[in-house]
C-alpha cells in the first residue's frame, strides 16, 4: 500500500511502513552549525544527522519515524 507525503511542498508516494529517512533517500536534509550539508547517516537514531521538521515539529529524527498518509515534512536540503 502506498501513502502520500509532502516533502518541502512536493508530493511523494512511498510504501507504507517505510521510515521517513528511507523515503527521503540519500539527499541532504539539513545544514550543520557551520553550514555543511548533512544527510541521514546511522539510520538508528544515534547520530541525529537526519533531523527534519515533521508536521510542524522541528528536530525529529527521520530514521525513527514511519511515514503516514498526509505527513508534511520540511527540511533544509
Amino acid at each position, binding site marked *: 500500500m502506498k501513502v502520500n507525503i509532502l516533502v518541502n511542498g512536493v508530493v511523494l508516494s512511498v510504501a507504507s511502513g517505510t521510515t521517513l529517512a528511507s523515503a527521503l533517500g540519500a539527499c541532504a536534509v539539513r545544514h550543520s*552549525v557551520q553550514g555543511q550539508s548533512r544527510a541521514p547517516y546511522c539510520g538508528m537514531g544515534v547520530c541525529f544527522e537526519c533531523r527534519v521538521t515533521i508536521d510542524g*515539529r*522541528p*528536530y525529529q529524527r527521520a530514521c525513527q519515524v514511519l511515514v503516514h498518509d498526509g505527513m508534511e515534512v520540511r527540511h533544509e536540503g
Partner: protein
Amino acid sequence: MRQVSYDLIVIGAGIIGSAVAESCARRGLHVLVLEAGIPAAGTTAAGMGHLVVLDDNPAELALSQDGLRRWQARSVELPSHAEYRACGTLWLASDTAEMDEAERKRALYQQYGLQSQLLTGSVLRQLEPNLSPHLAGALQVPGDAVLYPPVASAWLLAQACHLGAELRRHSPVQALLPQGVQLRDGSELSAGQVVIAAGNASATLLPGLPLKPRKGQLLITDRYPGMVRHQLVELGYIRSAHGGEADSVACNIQPRATGQLLIGSSRQYHDADPAISWPLLQTMLTRACDYLPGLATLQALRSWAGFRPATPDKLPLLGPVPGQTGCWLATGHEGLGITTALASAELLAQMLTNEPTTLDPRPYDPARFGSWQTPPQAVAMELTT
C-alpha cells in the same frame, strides 16, 4: 624538599580560583595555581552562568552587585565564545501576592542604585509571547546578563598566566603546610600565602569546614532561536522554593546565544550521587512547563547534575582561615560563584595585599563560624594516615 617559592599558591582552577589568580597576578604577585584535575571542570562547568543580583540579605546583594558591575565593565574584553549577553532577568509573578513581592524587590534594588521595572501581564506577554497567559506580570532587571562559565573561567586563567601566573594541572594538594602545601605525590611547594578555592573539595583540606554540597540539575534543549529572549526566573525562586532543607525546584529558563534553552533549577542537600535524579528532573521540568507551556514539545539534548558549595548562612567564605597565618579561603558561593567571581577575587586580593577593600569583608569572614578550625599539622597527619 622545597623548590621555587611563590608569593601565592591558589588551590583550585575553577572560576573563583582563576579570578583570584588573575586579581593577584595583576598586583604583581608571583602566583601558582594548583588544579587537582582540569581547570573549570567542577561546579564552574555545571552551572548556568546567570549573572544576577540577589537580595536575600545586604551582604549577598553587595557582592553580587559588585560582581555584576565588574562583568559588565569587562564584557567587551571577553572572547565571543564566552557568549556574554546582556539579556536581563524577568522575575515572573504568578499572582498578585508575587506582584507585591516584585514591587518590594524593585524598591530595594532602587535603594542600591539598580534599575528595574514592573511589567504588567500584557506587557510581559509582548516581551515573551511564549510564556503562560496566566502570569500576573514580572520585574524586569535589564542589567543582569548571562555567559558561558567554562569559557569565561578559562579566559580569566589565561589572563592570569599572561600576567605571569603558572598553572599545574592534575596536581592535587594533599595537605596544607605552614607557608606552603604538600602535593599528593609527596612533593612540597612553598608560598608566602595560600588561597583555598577548591569548592566542595576545600573541606578535605580543612576538615570541619562548614560547607555542604548542594546538588543541582540542568537540562539543555536543541536550538529554538527566539522562543525566549530574557533569563526567566520565578519570583518564588528563593523565598518559597529554595529556602529550606528539603529538595526543591524552581522555574529558571535561560536563552543561550545558540538559541538553546537551559532549564533549571533544583536544590538537594542530601543526594551525593552525581547521576540525574529522574523524578526530581520531572518535577523541575513540570514546574518550568507551568511557566513556559511550549517547553513540553521541545527536544532535550542533555541533562546533568553538579554540586554547589553551600554554607549554612548562604554567604561565601572569603578571608583568612582562622588560626592559620597566610592561609585564605575563597569558596562557598553556592549558586552565585559565577556572578560574584570578579568581586570575590578583588575583595580577597585587596585583603591579601593589605589594600583598602571596596566592600565590607566582615559578612564573608570565615571566622564567623567559630568551631571548625583545625591546626595545619593535625590536618597533614590526618590526611597522610
